[in-house]
């Protein structure tokens, strides 16, 4: 059959046109109609979703402001040798004077000042100061501009200042990205920032580790609840489901703030603990628990020490050793630190773990467990070998949801995280709304996006995205 068609050329339709073409023609109309049907949504998605992301990605490398505001200066700077150790010569200063006068007329010099201030502090005030004088520049006169600028501020003769301008004169820059991984752009390439200025890698690492921890605690707490939901009689299951969904009906801010009330130093949890320690039972049990806790913390510290040793190998962050080896019971620091963020975020993201888990578990027939038991498996073996593997798609779906939500979470860490429990997204928010360094915020966001996509890809390779079930 295949041979025949190969010899006779393409299969022809009744009217003699090749079958493929007439099929395509027949399908085109219906395709167009389908496209028209989804067009509003498609446009909406493009405009509100794809376009902002594209714009953000562009902002993270965009840097036209320098060459647009100081076009002549950047051109003149081309032959200046950055390693010379001295400021450039007269022509550059002359060009600068011309540029400045125009920039001041357009009020652009302050913008450029703040932009360059991200790279070297002091430039902003230098530009503003120079701007005030630049109005009176007489370009026709034969002035020594280098001396003139030195007169305004000695910083103009600082070669480092000129290095910054030259480094950032191209229209596209990798500076923001270097910044977001704690490096800085220099005329020769890039170098690590001084130790006391390195924060972003640490933050990325913390965000990642804490998101993983939150995902794990969500699995631990969500799995039994989902199991109950799937296996209780319908009436109780419905009630439980309402309890699971209840948080969705409360504002996120309210829920997070409630944790503040619960966890703070004089909060409900600590007060209860203090009361408990004062009771008879508390007094009896405290020494025992202290002893056990000390052993546990000792072990944990041992693990952390090893962890630090390993992660120290590639320059990552120290995880704090637990300092409160429990001598007596004090009020616990449960908020404004990592603990607070983990507790509150676990609570807030828990439904996103429970729901997909439940939807998968609801489809696992109890007959499998019976079958396993009839073959001689104990309850535990039956669960572990038969039930659990079938619920893995639910764990996968829940984990992806929770992890991706967690890694970009902002409000909760902001409220309960203090300084040590904040995420990279809090930093991004800071740069967007306070420091107005949108380029850096965009670069941080782009890195976060890339990290999530990378993890997603890795997940697909290891577990297989087909193994993720969000519904029946």
């Amino acid at each position: 059959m295949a041979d025949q068609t190969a010899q006779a050329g393409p299969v022809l339709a009744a009217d003699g046109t090749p079958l493929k073409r007439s099929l395509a023609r027949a399908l085109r109309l219906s395709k167009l109609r389908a496209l028209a049907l989804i067009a509003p949504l498609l446009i909406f998605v493009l405009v509100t979703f794809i376009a902002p992301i594209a714009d953000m990605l562009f902002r993270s490398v965009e840097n036209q402001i320098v060459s647009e505001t100081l076009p002549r200066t950047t051109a003149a700077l081309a032959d200046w040798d950055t390693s010379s150790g001295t400021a450039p010569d007269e022509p550059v200063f002359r060009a600068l004077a011309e540029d400045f006068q125009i920039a001041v007329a357009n009020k652009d010099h302050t913008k450029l000042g703040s932009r360059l201030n991200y790279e070297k502090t002091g430039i902003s005030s230098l530009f503003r100061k120079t701007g005030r004088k630049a109005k009176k520049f007489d370009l026709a006169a034969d002035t020594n501009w280098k001396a003139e600028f030195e007169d305004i501020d000695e910083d103009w003769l600082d070669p480092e200042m000129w290095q910054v301008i030259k480094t950032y004169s191209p229209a596209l820059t990798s500076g923001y990205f270097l910044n977001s991984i704690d490096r800085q752009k220099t005329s020769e390439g890039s170098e690590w920032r001084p130790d006391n200025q390195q924060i972003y890698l640490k933050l990325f690492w913390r965000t990642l580790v804490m998101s993983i921890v939150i995902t794990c605690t969500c699995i631990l707490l969500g799995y039994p609840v989902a199991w109950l939901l799937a296996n209780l009689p319908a009436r109780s299951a419905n009630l439980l489901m309402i309890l699971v969904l209840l948080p969705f009906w409360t504002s996120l801010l309210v829920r997070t703030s409630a944790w503040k009330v619960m966890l703070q130093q004089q909060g409900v949890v600590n007060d209860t603990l203090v009361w408990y320690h004062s009771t008879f039972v508390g007094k009896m049990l405290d020494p025992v628990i202290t002893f056990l806790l000390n052993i546990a913390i000792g072990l944990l510290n041992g693990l952390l020490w090893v962890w630090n040793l390993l992660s120290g190998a590639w320059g990552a962050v120290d995880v704090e050793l637990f300092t409160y080896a429990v001598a007596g019971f004090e009020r616990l620091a449960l908020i404004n630190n990592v603990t607070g963020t983990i507790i509150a975020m676990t609570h807030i993201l828990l439904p996103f773990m429970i729901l997909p888990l439940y939807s998968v578990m609801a489809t696992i027939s109890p007959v499998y467990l019976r079958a396993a038991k009839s073959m001689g498996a104990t309850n535990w073996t039956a669960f572990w070998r038969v039930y659990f593997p079938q619920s893995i798609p639910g764990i996968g779906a829940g984990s992806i949801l929770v992890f991706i939500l967690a890694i970009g979470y902002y409000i909760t860490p902001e409220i309960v995280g203090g300084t040590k429990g904040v995420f990279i997204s809090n930093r991004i928010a800071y740069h967007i709304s306070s420091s107005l360094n949108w380029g850096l915020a965009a670069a941080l966001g782009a890195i976060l996006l890339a990290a999530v996509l990378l993890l997603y890809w890795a997940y697909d390779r290891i577990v297989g995205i087909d193994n993720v079930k969000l519904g029946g």
Partner: protein
Amino acid sequence: MSQSSTRADFVVFDRVQKSYDGETLVVKDLNLSIGKGEFLTMLGPSGSGKTTCLMMLAGFETATHGDILLDGKPINNISPHKRGIGMVFQNYALFPHMTIAENLSFPLEVRKMGRSEREERVQRALDLVQMGEFGGRRPAQLSGGQQQRVALTRALVFEPDLVLMDEPLGALDKQLRETMQFEIKRIADDLGITVVYVTHDQTEALTMSDRVAVFEDGRIQQLAPPDELYEAPKNSFVAQFIGENNTLEGVVQEINGDVALVKLDDDSLIDAKPVNVSAAGERTTVSIRPERVEINPDLGADAHTLKADVLEFIYMGDVFRTRLRVAGNDNFIVKTRNRADQARLEPGTQVDIGWLPQDCRALDA
């Protein structure tokens, strides 16, 4: 299993009752003894409590009242995984995340059998059902019949003495069903295992079983070998449920030893064998199998015959199936073998029909 293996009461249900909701009894007073090596079928309409009985035996439901004994020991308080009972579920319940070989080795693994022995046994079991090359596949990649065979093998691979099967052939087409019926029966006989088999297909029950327990409404209506069940049903439910059956309503006129004279509702008289009737004046349902009815019979002078109108004649190949109107019943079926000399009845004509008194059973009304 040495001395007890000859027992006639390998499995015993002793006055077992079961209620799920505390209001209605799903199983009412079940008494049943199953012998070692016996193939016993529970047959009954949907909802009659067959699965419930099986689940109580397997240990997934507890009896509300009464005892279940396995090999002489009460098992009410033994947890399911220690009962050592193989089970084939209605929809096979093959573990979807394991391959066929893993499915089969699961019961051996939980019995802590060594790896090499396990593999050998699994391969042997697969070969036994001609599925040798399918060990690496997932259940979803097998046809229904193949899954069925795997489920059967899995229930047998750990060599249980007792195997329970809950409508294992329910999802298969007719042809495959018949092959599998034969296969299951052969394997059960070869291995000498005791089988409790649940079905609501009466042909299946009749062809496979040593004894059949007919369930209705939570009770055993009759417990008997297939031929007895078919030929000597104890009540009208069993007569109706097993095989095709004609019924006529009437009142007992007199009982003469083995023959009862029954006056039908249109005042005609027939002879029947009294089964569930004891005295004249009782209402009764008489039941006659379609193949025991004779047309224009020659039964002797004093035998009673009935006039019948031919309504429909259906040619079915090996038999002719004729629908008649007899004593007001429009659904009286007669089956005659397709012999060269067999007349084909024309619809619209009238014939005489009759039967031997012992083929016609006077049952409860």
